[in-house]
């Protein structure tokens, strides 16, 4: 008898973990709220740092999904921890008895309209990183009208206690730099400004991208958080910040302002945590058993976590996290269920 593993969330982490567990011989059930797998990857055009189309890794992930039972447009109705398993009722009426559950619910993008001073949803030419990615894909958005001056605001809803998120969202800096370059490619005459507090180019090749943005695209980086945005009569934007490197207030008129909305915990994930009586950590993301050594284990036996459910992550980090989670689940099931252990031994002997 194969163990059932339920994976909640069909983003990259959920997909990668499903594929890994399927290969390890488990019976994998993947549920996804939306009608397609891929999560945020579906809505992203190209990925940092090399600018690979998001569809590429997505296709690669799709290829390994053979045999995984996927339920899309499906949510968790209820979830209960039994003695050695979880009783899960899905919104499509199916009940699953899962020996292990992996939560790969990902993240929600910060609702940029909550930073009222930036006027998202009020001013005509204020958009978010997600809107811009959508425009890169579709090339249709009334707000983007051949802009000559484009600004990027880093840390929108990140490193901002008043916006409810003290932490750094990790990927926005490099995303902003990537998008700044892409905007320059789309509008070569445009002048692009990035308003940053710190540039966190932590990953491999990120610094190269930053250098390229400066050198090849002439992107101007202004160290200072945008304080307020107003709309001019011609619907252009009057943006104010402090240039902290010269300790002076700075003001500029822009035709397009892109807000780099950060990563917040997933509300859907929070509902599941509530059903299981799991308290989140201060940052709103899932609590793990140990932040250094047991990153994929939730504080409940049989419950595992992968990807941005435990905080902001890049795509390769999410995938690595998913593989780790798959390994952790495999260890767990082998330890808990004697027949799984026996089966494994048998396979080893015969193999």
């Amino acid at each position, binding site marked *: 008898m194969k163990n059932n593993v339920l994976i909640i969330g069909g983003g990259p982490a959920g997909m990668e973990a499903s594929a890994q567990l399927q290969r390890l011989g488990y019976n994998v059930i993947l549920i996804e709220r939306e009608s397609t797998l891929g999560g945020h990857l579906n809505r992203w055009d190209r990925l940092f740092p090399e600018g690979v189309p998001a569809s590429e890794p997505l296709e690669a992930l799709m290829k390994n999904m053979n045999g995984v039972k996927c339920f899309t447009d499906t949510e968790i109705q209820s979830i209960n921890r039994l003695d050695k398993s979880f009783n899960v009722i899905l919104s499509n009426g199916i009940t699953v008895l899962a020996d292990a559950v992996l939560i790969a619910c990902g993240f929600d993008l910060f609702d940029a309209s909550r930073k009222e001073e930036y006027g998202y949803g009020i001013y005509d030419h204020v958009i978010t990183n997600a809107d811009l990615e959508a425009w890169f894909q579709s090339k249709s958005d009334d707000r983007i009208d051949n802009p000559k001056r484009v600004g990027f605001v880093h840390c929108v809803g990140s490193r901002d206690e008043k916006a409810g998120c003290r932490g750094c969202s990790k990927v926005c800096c490099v995303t902003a730099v990537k998008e700044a370059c892409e905007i320059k490619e789309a509008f070569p005459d445009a002048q692009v400004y990035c308003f940053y507090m710190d540039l966190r180019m932590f990953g491999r090749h990120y610094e190269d991208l930053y250098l390229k943005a400066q*050198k090849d695209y002439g992107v101007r980086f202004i160290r200072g958080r945008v304080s307020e945005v107003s709309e001019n009569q011609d619907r252009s934007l009057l943006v104010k910040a402090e240039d902290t490197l*010269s300790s002076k207030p700075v003001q500029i008129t822009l035709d397009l302002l892109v807000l780099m909305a950060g990563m917040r915990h997933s509300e859907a994930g929070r509902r599941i945590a509530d059903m299981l009586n799991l308290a989140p950590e201060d940052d709103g993301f899932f609590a793990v058993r140990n932040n250094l050594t047991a990153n994929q284990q939730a504080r409940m036996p049989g419950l595992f976590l992968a990807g941005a459910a435990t905080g902001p992550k890049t795509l390769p980090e999410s995938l690595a996290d998913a593989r780790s989670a798959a390994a952790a689940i495999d260890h767990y099931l082998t330890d808990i269920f004697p027949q799984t252990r026996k089966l494994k031994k048998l396979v080893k002997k015969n193999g």
Partner: protein
Amino acid sequence: MVDFGFSLSPSSRIDLDEFDRKTFDRLLALEPDAKKCMECGSCSAVCTASRYTETSVRRALHALRNGCGAQAVEELKGCQFCGKCTMVCPRGINTRHLILSILKIYGAL
């Protein structure tokens, strides 16, 4: 006109809309590596002249990025051209040439 004993105070604000791109582009044409500066301040930290007087390549370039040419020239007046800044620049910018170029273009304005 009435003397009120006070008057409008000048703004300290940098207005990037007033930025003179043409002149700045002339500088970039002379020293394209100026674009690479990430304003780490290494140059100012080792500056021989900055021990005695307000001199900073970083501040000068920063002033130019904000469109303040006169301030940039002022920042470089005390430069002794010793070349220490070039030696320490992590991005390999030829700061001496940058200084010469800034003075050449903005010094004449």
